């Protein structure tokens, strides 16, 4: 194990079922995601992609089935080993980009890059002192993505990470994801377009 790489773990989801408001969204969904792997989660609108991600990060209780994290210590909890970047970006508009990232780093632990360095990586070094409320949708998304860099966590759960990003930023994100996979991380990304990852498996929910 080289320094900077994650210890090998495996996420195992078996027979997951999801019911929202009494309506069955999906059932019998099984997959595994090991270190160094990426899954592109596809499916039509409303197929349950975001619900699956909410289940994986522990916000939604599965209606059936189990989610296991193998090889991650005594109390393997996926929520504490994963990053979530979703539609709700988890940013406070009144705080600056730097403050938001510093907060995320303190709360998530396992500090990696400093907030200013992470912002430089996503090309927002100049925006560190600006309140997030002043940023555009794409810039906000990039601040949220910079969260992936301020603390080290092996699983990245991304809900349509490419949305609102320009071409250059999409390439930047693809580069970050490749680096993460090379270090033994794992990625599950709900997407409608190409992720820019060669080895990504496709997991399709629904018809």
């Amino acid at each position, binding site marked *: 194990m080289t320094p900077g790489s994650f210890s090998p773990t495996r996420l195992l989801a078996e027979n997951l079922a999801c019911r929202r408001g009494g309506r069955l969204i999906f059932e019998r969904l099984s997959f595994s995601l090991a270190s160094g792997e990426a899954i592109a989660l596809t499916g039509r609108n409303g197929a349950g992609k975001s619900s699956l991600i909410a289940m994986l990060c522990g916000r939604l209780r599965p209606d059936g089935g189990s989610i296991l994290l193998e090889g991650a210590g005594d109390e393997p909890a996926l929520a504490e080993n994963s990053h979530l970047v979703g539609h*709700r970006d988890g940013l406070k508009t009144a705080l600056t980009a730097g403050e938001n990232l510093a907060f995320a780093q303190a*709360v*998530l632990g396992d500090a990696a890059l400093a907030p200013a360095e992470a912002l430089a990586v996503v090309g927002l070094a100049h925006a560190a002192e600006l309140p997030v409320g002043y940023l555009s949708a794409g810039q906000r998304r990039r601040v949220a993505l910079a969260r992936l860099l301020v603390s080290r966590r092996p699983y990245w759960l991304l809900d349509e990470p490419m949305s609102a990003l320009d071409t250059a930023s999409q390439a930047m994100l693809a580069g970050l994801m490749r680096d993460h996979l090379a270090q033994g991380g794992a990625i599950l990304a709900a997407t409608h377009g190409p992720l820019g990852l060669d080895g990504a498996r496709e997991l399709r929910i629904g018809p």
Partner: protein
Amino acid sequence: MTRAFIAILKRDLALASRAGGGGELALVFFLTLVVLVPFALGPDLNLLSRIGPAILWLGALLSVLIGLDRLFQSDEEDGSLDLIRASALPLELAVLAKGLAHWLTTGLPLALITPLLGLLVALPGEGVLPLVATLLVGTPALSFIGAGGAALAASLRRGGLIVPVLVAPLTVPVLIFGVSAANAALGGTVPFLTPFLILCAISLAAIVVGTVAAAAALRQAD
């Protein structure tokens, strides 16, 4: 873990102090209420000073309740709560940090401006410090009982109305013992300490129960 706790506390304090953070809302509401009451009652100083402690306590209670629905809802809406859930910090401690920040930005300032507002309701001089003391130890109970209600309403789109309805009945004991302690200091048959110590006990119990209840409600959300 301590770092995450302090980060949540500091962030909530920073948010409350920025424009539109809602930190001032409680204070302005309190001020408005207490300023208007003497006009409504008319020029009867004796009546005013007799019900002064009750007016100030009622004003403080309503002021604390008024912004409470946003305590967890704003974090739920923008996804910050997912971030807090993903922390190694137990949810109970996260709630404790948020409740503490809420008290520091509402209950504490309310208690501190009470001497000034006491003048408006002709509060006798010897009653000022005891009243401030009752507000200091009583308002944490309001923040933490409120946190339980706010957590239940966190994931409801229009949960704003439900929070005061849920929380107000639970705050009745705080109001009763807060006002009776403040009145006892102005003379009467009961010594000040008797209701005051009960108020302290209610506050301590509310901090524990409110924290655990709010964390449980947040886990069940959605």
